[in-house]
């Protein structure tokens, strides 16, 4: 699927949910339903992405690093 261009796009949510969110954000720092939905989705997406990430270095790298840390007196 082609990547969307531009700054914003439209996603449909049920009107009932929209109304609940609208009520929920009254008196909070959120100024629109879109702002709230973006906030919540970013939080959820980040959690999923975090869970699926790999170690950032190999065992060989690790051995080399441990050697350096020993020489510097950190371990």
């Amino acid at each position, binding site marked *: 699927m082609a990547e969307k261009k531009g700054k914003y796009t439209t996603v449909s949510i049920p009107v009932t949910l929209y109304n609940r969110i609208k009520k929920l954000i009254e008196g909070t720092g959120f100024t629109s339903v879109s702002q709230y939905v973006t906030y919540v989705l970013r939080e959820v997406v980040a959690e999923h992405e975090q869970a699926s990430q790999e170690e950032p*270095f190999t065992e060989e790298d690790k051995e080399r*690093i441990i050697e350096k840390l020993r020489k*510097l007196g950190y*371990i």
Partner: protein
Amino acid sequence: MVSRPHGGRLVYRVATGRRREALLEEAREVPRLDVGLERAIDLLDIAYGAFSPLEGFLIQEDYISVLEDMRLHDDTPWTIPIVLDVDPAEIAGVSEGDDIALFYNGEPIALMRVEEIYGWDKKRHAQLVYKTVDVNHPGVAKTLARKELLVGGRIDLVGEPPNPFEEVTLWPRETRVLFRERGWKTIAAFQTRNVPHRGHEFVQKAALTFTDGLLVHPLLGWKKKGDYKDEVIIEAYKALIANYFPKNVVVLAGLRMNMHYAGPREAVHHAIVRKNFGATHFIVGRDHAGVGDYYGPYEAWDLFNEFPDLGITPLFIREAFYCKKCGGMATEKTCPHPPEYRIKISGTRIREMLRRGERPPEYMMRPEVAEVVLKYSNPFVE
């Protein structure tokens, strides 16, 4: 578990072995661009992953997105534009897609694939990043003095500027291994450009009460006139840690990174960088990364609320003071006594005392720390 790298992958663009040899050879053949120490330090931060997920200087769509929305074009939070500025004459004859060699002090330091050359509005940049165009702001003054064009593109590091603090310099891969070796799962990072006073020590220990370890992470790099010199900060922290912290709960590591004095935006930037070093928590104090009275004392705290996907937990700890009635350090949240009992631990006042060669009282600064500073004839950046 230590934090995952920002944007999902820890960048490592340090060329070694044969690849480095080949790139060094190429550096002698392609167009050359000389950079100063600040850009050289940016290159280190990119190459060693402190600025992950950046793999180079920002291209235009990322630059505009960071400037306007505090996010990279792919929606990853990023608040400070990391850009390479050039004069048109310096890159005459260079086209997008070309490789150029970045030289520091007469030696090749990096190869860069020029992805884009574009103009920028420095006043607008200043307004959005620093929230002011006042030239008395050190970040604004620096921005307005920069060159007319920006060059974006991926880099490979082939050399490094001399490092006077080799023995305390650790990069993200190293701190990550170190934290694992120590068995730390939660790490609070403390950003500093100051010699520690009792207020700093208080917030560090407050964080340590619920994390496994503390990363004390002073910035080594360009600072404004009147700030403490790097060597003074490092030595002062060594004295504090040796005398007032249990063994093996603190890692002191210098971070070669430039200060921007961009207040709230820079506070978020500092948190992102520490996440790349593996920290799970980041201490955000009063007027973090601020200067003068350009930012509200706790303005940075509000900005963090705009980033639910930051991936590192900010620890908002109020400024500590000494309470004569409590008989110790306290904050608004922990002390019920009226202002006449409270003594503010003012960094400015401490600096003035030290400048006059006076030892600050013990409730302001540990004697071992003051001793370190006082042994320097001039402990401040000129």
